[in-house]
């Protein structure tokens, strides 16, 4: 008897929790404060970086979704837009997309670095929308990004690349809207320098068979480096001494000998950006503790 009551109570509790969660998502809003947008993103477990315009009237939330760098701009409490930059998209393709799609729109641009386009997806809240619809905007944009990438002929996430040529690396960086500089070192290894999560990152291509990324930081003690390595996955921190300086490098390698997919390459690059941010926070805490 007690067991039946307990089960009934649990079922009711679960039902109330579900209704509560739905009720939250069904709440109709006509505007949203930037703090509420932050909370919404946190609820969706989206890690973002927030910034605001000089006047303080526009707010930007930058985050990565499935390897795409996305910006959510809140122009006003009633008006928000998601966008993502794609490099190397010709104007014909952009126009074709705009005639074919219903939800998002693409705009064509050209600057010193070449052609690019911005895929945009806006939401006007002033007529009244549910908070669930705002969440859906982000989820739906994920799908739009994949579709658009595929439309441009870039998204070959599951195709195994046997030989990761420099061109393949460049293509991946371009589709991630990463601006890079490339040069060869004395040993003939191609290096791609770019910024991610505001860290300077260098990607080395060792003949298409293995890739490596590194980012440099202020030197930390070796014992601390060991402790860091013990607690992290996929990366290692190493201390180096060059002619006139000592530093700690965060490194990650990707073995491409058996082939690698474009999706894996993108994921590896994005994850390293997150790792760089994590290690930077770690060193900052370390410096604060030293003081």
């Amino acid at each position, binding site marked *: 008897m007690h067991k039946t009551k307990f089960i009934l109570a649990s079922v009711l509790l679960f039902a109330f929790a579900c209704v509560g969660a739905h009720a939250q998502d069904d709440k109709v809003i006509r505007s949203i404060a930037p703090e509420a947008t932050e909370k919404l993103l946190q609820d969706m477990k989206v890690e973002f970086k927030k910034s605001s315009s000089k006047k303080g009237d526009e707010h930007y939330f930058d985050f990565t979704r499935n390897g795409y760098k996305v910006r959510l701009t809140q122009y006003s409490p009633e008006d928000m837009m998601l966008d993502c930059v794609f490099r190397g998209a010709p104007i014909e393709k952009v126009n074709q997309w705009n005639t074919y799609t219903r939800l998002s729109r693409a705009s064509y641009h050209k600057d010193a670095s070449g052609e690019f386009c911005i895929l945009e997806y806006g939401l006007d809240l002033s007529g009244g929308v549910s908070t669930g619809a705002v969440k859906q905007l982000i989820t739906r944009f994920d799908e739009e990004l994949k579709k658009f990438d595929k439309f441009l002929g870039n998204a070959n996430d599951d195709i195994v690349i046997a030989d990761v040529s420099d061109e393949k690396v460049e293509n991946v960086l371009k589709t991630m809207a990463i601006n890079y500089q490339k040069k060869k070192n004395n040993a003939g290894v191609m290096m791609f320098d770019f910024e991610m999560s505001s860290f300077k990152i260098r990607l080395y291509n060792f003949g298409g068979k293995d890739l490596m990324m590194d980012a440099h930081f202020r030197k930390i003690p*070796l014992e601390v480096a*060991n402790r860091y390595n013990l607690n992290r996955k996929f990366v290692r921190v190493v201390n180096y001494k060059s002619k006139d300086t000592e530093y700690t490098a965060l490194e990650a390698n990707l073995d491409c000998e058996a*082939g690698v*997919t474009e999706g894996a390459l993108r*994921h590896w690059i994005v*994850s390293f950006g997150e790792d760089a941010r994590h290690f930077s926070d770690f060193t900052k805490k370390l410096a604060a503790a030293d003081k």
Partner: protein
Amino acid sequence: MNRTILILVALALIASTSAVSSQDKEKDKVFRSVANDTVEKVLQSLEVKYHKEERKEKDTSVMFFEFKRGDQAYRLFNYVNDLWIESTFEKSMKAEDINRWNADAKFSRLVQVQQRDKTILSLECQIDCLGGITEAGIKQFVNRFDEEAKRFSKFK
């Protein structure tokens, strides 16, 4: 008669071609989460005898596979979205030497682990599968680490 033989040969050829192509498809299948069966399949293809066990962690459990290649013992953990391989050595090393290995290595890292009664060295490597990995990629991960461990056994 000759015609019948010719048809039979052609059919056999088609059957073997499609079997090979389905094997190739399987080999190139991209996983974003790795099943324990897949890990076992890879280990079997490497002809290693393994022992599998489940380790209970805080809120979850993880399957690990222990095996030997030559004299070297390995432990491969399947965290589903990533794989972790390690080989431990009952010795300690100066922090400078550990750093020297890490500076030189590509597909492993060396860490010193302080256990209750002893200090050990763990040579380890992890691979993130969330972006996609094939069976060939997992096989390469194990083989590459084997090379690293062999190289480390000669490291002074």
